[in-house]
């Protein structure tokens, strides 16, 4: 994985110094809260319902054991002993004191981490495929390009105050595990007919209150021009995006208002100007970055056999372990969704355990996923049983990856000042209702996603089953959506009808899954059945 050099370190250290000075001036009353707010947001510090929340960047979800252990240290020293992995592969802490924030950033900088541009109207931390470098279906590791963009977009002066936030995702496989078409810019690494590397560029996707699946703006962008093309798109938006209504300022609105064709024309025209600046990062630098992502020294001649004599272990292997490109190796998913737990939450002790296991079994590498789980990307199959035993001892072996209890949920009204309704208790009640693992497995892949407000941090638009919490005359009310997908077949869920209270929504989900079991055909996932039979049979099952 990427290792800082003197320049990277100096820039992150300077940022700690800058933020320390900004906090000092704020506490001394030299900056107003209105002036300070965007400054702290650019460093991931939100003011929530009860305290400050600090969001720490995990660039494209990749980190090592030492960094993971630091995340545990921060949870213990500055928070209440736990952290929360987010839907953007980051981690956040919910009980932070403003005066501690500079020290936390200084601690993070010692392990090459930061909180730069994890919130606010900035180019956010990039997300990517959590199986990058391990997946059999990728054409190349997408992370060198993600790292290139991390650097190039860090403190980009022209885009200091964009109309709104801006999210980029990069993948390199046909199976889209990063929801690229639901991003402001989604990039898919491809080869053209001549065998050259380039990107499919999707612009203008997003969730929130006005969801869009991003259109393909450029089918093949030469890889060497990645950054200048992004600058062109960002400039068109920075100059022409709305600034009069916070709900209409994302790039997706501009793409929609101009139309795909006109937006594309403007970006291409701007790109011709920008090409003259020579702002593209040269390939020699891409190669330097790529050396950091060279495959680990995989052993050869390993057996692919797995001893499945322990049935609980076999179940976990079937559900949470995925194929690896190297013979004898596997990708291990650590579910952070135990029944009764809070999706994405981990204790400091669990963080330490995961760090140890990554060092021992996965070439000191781990990933955070947008589904709020953790991945050990490179595990020898012969180590799986030992690893599973250690995970089970730490309460980390829940075998529910991609099942109905592997729920994505935002923090909701329990923490978030924007939320209209609680998300966590609904996730817990659904997980509880479907606690029987046999029943979950019978339902198969079913992505359930819950947001506590229209901002859609819990990705409800992209859930096979989505739940949106709203405030209805002062009480929490939950709307049900069906048919969304964040994968390569991206689609937006459709609201079924009138909402439900907290228990009613759990019943409604059950009526939907019962209907699915009744009408599905051989081999169909819930989403496949929904797409085949359509909305009406489910609506009828829900409302009678």
């Amino acid at each position, binding site marked *: 994985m990427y290792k800082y050099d003197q320049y990277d370190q100096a820039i992150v250290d*300077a940022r700690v110094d800058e933020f320390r000075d900004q906090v000092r001036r704020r506490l001394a009353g030299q900056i107003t809260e209105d002036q300070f707010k*965007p400054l702290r947001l650019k460093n991931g510090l939100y003011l929530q319902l009860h305290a400050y929340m600090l969001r720490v960047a995990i660039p494209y979800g990749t980190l090592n054991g030492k960094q993971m252990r630091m995340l545990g240290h921060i949870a213990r020293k500055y928070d209440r002993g736990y952290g929360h992995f987010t839907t953007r592969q980051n981690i956040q802490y919910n009980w932070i004191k403003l005066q501690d924030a500079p020290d936390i950033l200084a601690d993070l900088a010692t392990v090459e981490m930061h909180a730069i541009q994890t919130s606010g109207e900035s180019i956010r931390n990039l997300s990517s495929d959590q199986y990058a470098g391990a997946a059999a279906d990728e054409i190349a590791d997408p992370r060198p390009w993600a790292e290139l963009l991390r650097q190039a977009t860090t403190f980009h*002066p022209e885009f*200091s105050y964009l109309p709104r936030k801006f999210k980029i995702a990069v993948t390199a496989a046909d199976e889209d595990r990063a929801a690229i078409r639901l991003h402001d810019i989604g990039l898919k690494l491809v080869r053209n007919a001549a065998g050259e590397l380039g990107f499919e560029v999707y612009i203008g996707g997003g969730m929130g209150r006005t969801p869009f699946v991003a259109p393909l703006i450029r089918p093949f962008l030469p890889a060497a021009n990645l950054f200048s093309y992004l600058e062109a798109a960002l400039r068109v938006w920075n100059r022409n995006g709305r600034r009069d209504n916070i709900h209409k300022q994302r790039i997706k609105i501009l793409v929609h208002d101009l139309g795909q064709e006109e937006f594309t024309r403007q970006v291409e025209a701007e790109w011709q100007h920008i090409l003259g*600046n020579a702002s593209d990062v040269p390939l020699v630098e891409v190669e330097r970055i790529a050396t950091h992502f060279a495959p680990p020294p995989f052993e050869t001649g390993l057996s692919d056999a797995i001893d499945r004599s322990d049935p609980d272990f076999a179940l976990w292997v079937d559900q949470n372990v995925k194929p690896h490109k190297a013979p004898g190796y596997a990708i291990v998913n650590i579910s952070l969704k135990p029944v009764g737990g809070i999706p994405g939450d981990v204790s400091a002790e669990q963080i330490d355990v995961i760090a140890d296991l990554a060092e021992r079994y996965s070439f000191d590498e781990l990933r955070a996923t947008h589904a709020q789980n953790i991945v050990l990307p490179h595990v020898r199959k012969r180590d799986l049983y030992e690893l599973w035993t250690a995970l089970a001892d730490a309460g980390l072996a829940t075998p529910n990856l991609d099942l109905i209890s592997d729920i994505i949920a935002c923090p909701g009204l329990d923490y978030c000042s924007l939320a209209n309704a609680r998300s966590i208790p609904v996730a817990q009640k659904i997980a509880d209702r479907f606690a029987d693992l046999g029943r979950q497995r019978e339902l198969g892949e079913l992505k359930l996603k819950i947001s506590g407000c229209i901002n859609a941090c819990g990705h409800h638009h992209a859930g096979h089953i989505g739940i949106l919490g709203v405030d209805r005359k002062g009480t929490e009310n939950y709307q049900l959506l069906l048919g969304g997908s964040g994968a390569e077949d991206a689609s937006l869920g459709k609201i079924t009808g009138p909402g439900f209270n907290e228990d009613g929504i759990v019943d409604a989900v059950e009526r939907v899954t019962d209907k699915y079991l009744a009408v599905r055909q051989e081999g169909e996932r819930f989403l496949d059945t929904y797409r085949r039979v359509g909305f009406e049979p489910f609506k009828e099952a829900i409302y009678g």
Partner: protein
Amino acid sequence: MADDFLRFRDDEPTEEPAVTLDAFLDQTNSSAVRLEAGEDVRLLLPHLHHISLIEVDFPRFRDGRGYSSAQILREAGYKGELRATGDVLVDQMDHMRRCGFDSFAPNAPIDPEVLRATLDRYAFRYQTAADAAVPVWKLRHG
């Protein structure tokens, strides 16, 4: 007129008052022009050779359109004074300098000490801009 420590040029400031973009385009003998946020900076490009001062206004510090305006002017070869006016705060001035602003006329006073620390803080930059900074990718490869 900007305070001395808010001007980063050696030449004499122009005495001419800046006119609006519309007025400038009507009577292009003026050499000082003021651009509001949202006005199309590219309308000035045919006239850059006889402009000595361009003011770019920031109605709110969170309105970032002026950064692109500055960058576009410098990319087009504009060498005259480029002044940021309005809601310009010390924590924005480093990036403004990078985009090519070389004088500031903020609504509220700026602390010279804080400004100096701000402008000196970052020794390295990740990307090219309108300033003289050499991006780190170039430093890495000589």
